[in-house]
């Protein structure tokens, strides 16, 4: 695997009033990897995601994206960067006044000025890719279930075939079949496009199935990073509990057993 660093975070500090969320946090994201971020509730996984995306201004720290410091970017450069990544928010964050198809087409319309027929085709392809039924396109987000909204959000995140995809708890709210289909999809896209995936997740099955590397957030920083095998040998009590707990063992068993066919 190429070890080009696409995003690097150094000495990040996030603070809300007296509450320090991150302190001296370092993290590298390598090109073409699937990085899973795990951590207990309130350890600032989502804050980290939002900080990298530029939605949250850190107190101190340096964030480099494609080798360029976020704080030194001009607005035009920021826009250019934003077109190179896609984000799936926790509940999809679809625009409620637009249909699913229109949601997917927003970026195409804004950035690429495509003819409508091509946008409709691309939207249909993305809708199919994320496993939504064809009649989901003309529906409004409020007419969809939570799981379907998530898929629609993913379709929107993938519309520009970005280099990096940020996923905030992507498989939460999906049924197990949908969740593994989603894992499979990410794997395929990554293989074809050299996609880099930054994934905040609690789904141990996803961690086992698709994550190349896992970063554990605890004690206000990235405690350890490494493969799933590395995690299993960690002595830190929270990490032990997480990966050796009943769910961790079940996911491990599912991974090591040959799939029944």
């Amino acid at each position, binding site marked *: 695997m190429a070890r080009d660093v696409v995003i690097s975070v150094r000495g990040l500090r996030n603070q809300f009033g007296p509450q320090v969320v991150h302190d001296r946090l370092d993290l590298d994201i390598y090109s073409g990897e699937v990085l899973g971020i795990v951590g207990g509730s309130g350890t600032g996984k989502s804050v980290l995601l939002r900080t990298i995306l530029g939605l949250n201004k850190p107190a101190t720290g340096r964030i480099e994206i494609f080798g360029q410091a976020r704080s030194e970017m001009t607005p035009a450069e920021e826009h250019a960067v934003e077109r190179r990544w896609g984000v799936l928010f926790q509940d999809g964050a679809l625009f*409620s006044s637009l249909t699913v198809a229109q949601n997917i087409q927003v970026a*195409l319309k804004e950035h690429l000025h*495509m003819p409508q027929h091509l946008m409709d*085709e691309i939207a249909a392809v*993305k809708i*199919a890719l994320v496993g939504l039924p*064809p009649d989901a396109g003309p529906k409004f987000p409020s007419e969809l279930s939570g799981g379907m909204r998530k898929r629609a959000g993913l379709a929107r995140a993938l519309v520009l075939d970005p280099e990096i995809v940020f996923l905030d708890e992507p498989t939460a709210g999906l049924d197990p079949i949908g969740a593994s289909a989603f894992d499979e999809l990410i794997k395929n896209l990554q*293989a*074809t496009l050299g996609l880099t995936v930054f994934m905040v997740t609690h789904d141990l099955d996803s961690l086992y199935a698709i994550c190349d590397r896992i970063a554990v957030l605890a004690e206000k920083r990235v405690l350890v990073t490494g493969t799933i095998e590395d995690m299993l040998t960690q002595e830190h009590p929270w990490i032990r509990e997480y990966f050796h707990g009943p769910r961790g063992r079940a996911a491990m068993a599912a991974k090591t057993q040959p799939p029944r066919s």
Partner: protein
Amino acid sequence: MVGVAQGEAWLDVSEDASSLMLRPQGDWIVRHAVAVDKALAAIDTIGRRTATFDLSHLRKLDTTGAWLIYRTGRTLERAGAAVTIAGATAPQATLLNAVAKGDRLAEERPHYNPFVNVVVRMGAALEEAGQTTRELVAFLGLILETLGKTVLNPLRMRATSTVYHMEQTGLNAVPIVSLISFLIGAVLAYQGAEQLKRFGGEIFTVNLVAVSFLREIGILLTAIMVAGRSGSAFTAQIGSMKLREEIDAMRTLGLDPMEVLVLPRVIALIVMVPILGFIGAMMGLFGGGLVVWLELGMSPQMYLVRLNEAVDIWDAGVAFIKAPVFGLLIAMIGCFEGMKVEGSAESVGQRTTASVVEGIFIVIVVDALFSIMFVKLGI
């Protein structure tokens, strides 16, 4: 060989009468989709026996590029050609298979004749209006029922919540209601004095200001401001709670939203609108008195004496009969529209607008009805 150069993605086409060889080159990704689409559309698909895509020179392929290849292949197949795709790497082949699932366009939305459309929308609006009226009456019944239950069992009243809403809708509205009433009172006196001067009746400016403010303008102004200020707030509060399923959560916990959310707001407005109306009327009289003093040179003492002669107790009494009804109606519509929010954030906005418009409308209609009633009763 025809080279179709299109930025960083292009297509080499070599062809003879019956076969077609297509070599996608460069980056077939979404950024170049418009160019690629044009290049592919230029291909003559009719009458080919074989068509081959050679992907071995392709640098990059994403889902959009794969879709465009798939779509062209499908068109060629339908035209009777045998299509093969050569030189695809394993991930590219996976991607081509994946996009095949997207081969189903959503049905086109039906188009209507614009005239028919207008009629359809008018009908829908009319039906909606009728439906809303029925539901509003039902909602009023529900409020009265809940109110009745609470009267029978006063311990069920949410005192904290009611007082909170009294502060929000009443106390906090005092400055703006006072200011507007004061200004309108002054304007009314000023304009009235100008007109009445013409036939020497400027002394009746006092009657004009006193009667109109005590009977009508004071309470009407207040009600309109409360509808805009608090009715809309009720809709937005209850509406966003509805969106986040808080209302449903309440029901599952055995709490009655009518009792917890609606009644405190209704009681708050029933109590506060008369008080605000009274403050408004006083400020209007104050504004009028100030103008009368400055413009006509009538001393404040004289103004009070004239005031005493001009009004009888029913002029003020009328306002106090109307005010609680206005409060009830505004709160009812605010809560009703909030309860009707569904789906999206946009719905909150629409309902809030509807709440203000309906609130002001119904206040004015009911005020007219009251006027007729009081005239008939001779008070």
